[in-house]
């Protein structure tokens, strides 16, 4: 059978090879290997303690692996080991080419400075120095995440949980990153607020062609946002595949348990 060659043409954005992390005798994460392609959204699901947050930290260079490596395709097109990056390259990733959406917006925002400054700060960090232009761009982004521009000078500590989360997303996306890491982005929000946020994220990801790695324990979030899913248990990836395939036709006992535990809508 001839495989269509164009499908293999585009190159992976991020590659994990044999990733492992041990805390003393405890293996928090073992033998994780996969490739993420541009524009692809990958969900990592599993319950608390399954190793999914550790994996996210390994993938985003916040934690050094005990074994294995993570490589990322820099904008020059070359795939480079994250462990070997220089300080300037790391800064470029953290400030520009990557976004990181935390479950708790207080971790990703500066709560006491204005919303406009929270968004503008990422731009100024990459050299924007024109106040008017920075403020205009911040306004545009507040609109995109459905925050009333009249609130631009208010600090996020005066915002509701849903607004804070949307502001955190604006702050991350303003530099046009190619990859966004999200750790339980809808955790702790009301169901109605979650639906709005998910819908917004889904649209932004597809409009901007973003790649994303989303850690969630909520399979509904995985279904709505991701193309592909990895199910983790005991630090290992036990099942992986197309999201609707894994959720509609789960193979592993643990995945079947997770899927069967969802309440019908």
């Amino acid at each position, binding site marked *: *059978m001839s*495989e*269509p060659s164009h499908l293999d043409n585009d190159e992976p954005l991020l590659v994990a090879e044999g990733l492992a992390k041990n805390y003393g005798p405890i293996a928090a994460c073992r033998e994780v290997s996969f490739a993420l392609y541009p524009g692809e959204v990958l969900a990592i699901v599993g319950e608390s303690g399954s190793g999914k947050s550790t994996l996210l930290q390994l993938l985003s260079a916040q934690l050094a692996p005990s074994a294995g490596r993570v490589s990322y395709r820099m904008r020059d097109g070359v795939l480079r080991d994250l462990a070997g990056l220089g300080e300037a390259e790391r800064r470029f990733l953290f400030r520009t080419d990557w976004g990181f959406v935390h479950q708790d917006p207080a971790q990703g925002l500066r709560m006491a400075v204005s919303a406009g400054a929270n968004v503008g700060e990422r731009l100024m960090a990459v050299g924007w120095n024109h106040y008017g232009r920075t403020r205009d761009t911040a306004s545009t982004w507040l609109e995109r995440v459905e925050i009333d521009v009249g609130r631009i000078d208010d600090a996020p500590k005066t915002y509701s949980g849903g607004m804070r989360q949307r502001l955190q997303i604006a702050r991350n996306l303003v530099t046009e990153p190619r990859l966004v890491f999200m750790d339980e982005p809808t955790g702790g929000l009301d169901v109605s607020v979650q639906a709005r946020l998910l819908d917004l994220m889904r649209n932004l990801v597809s409009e901007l062609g973003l790649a994303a790695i989303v850690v969630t324990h909520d399979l509904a979030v995985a279904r709505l946002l991701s*193309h592909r899913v990895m199910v983790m248990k005991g630090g290992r990836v036990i099942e992986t*595949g*197309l999201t609707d*395939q894994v959720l509609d*036709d789960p*193979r*592993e006992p643990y995945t079947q348990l997770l899927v069967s535990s969802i309440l019908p809508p």
Partner: protein
Amino acid sequence: MTAMIELTDAQKTFTMHLQGGVELPVVRGVSFHVGPGECVVLSGPSGAGKSSILKMIFGNYRCDSGRIGIRHRGSVIDLATAEPRQVLSVRRSTIGYVSQFLRAVPRVATIDVVAEPLIVNGVAREEARARAGALLRRLNIPERLWSLPPSTFSGGEQQRVNIARGFISDLPILLLDEPTASLDAANRAVVVELIAEKKTRGVAMVAIVHDDEIRHLIADRIVDVTSFAAAA
């Protein structure tokens, strides 16, 4: 003739780990093909595996063994072994699926729900919306509803939105799971017309329909799924 879909000895079994690992054979030895402009209707009683076969062709259910050959962008790809991103590529540009129920995304207007498959394939938003409107009008969805999300619609209206979304694109393969199930006679007739138009454009279709009259109107060939029943 080059087949658009060619199934060879496809097999599917569910293993229910939560029920003590009981094996639930669904189908085996599934072999048939569908050519361009042809509509093959799967027949057989409920539970015979018709929907499962449709889901296997869409890559929604995994295939345990055998082959599901799909003509995709000029070559043949085996969906039984394809990588997730290849399956996504096939769904984007080759296979459309009209399910029985609309999986509505909250807050998206009906006209955009219908236009989305065209926009994803690079059609300009205005043109996509115009074509979506034309199709919704044909399916008797009043224009005043177009700007509302379909989640508030009746079952029959949602079904028609779903049909519009499924038929709007120019994909060369369409899978139809009971497309006329909850429709009145007038709308059933529209769906029969839409299927006939797809045939003249060379679209290969696999359908499940319980209504004998509709089956008679759309089927070029009937494949009896009972012969693929996996003996338990």
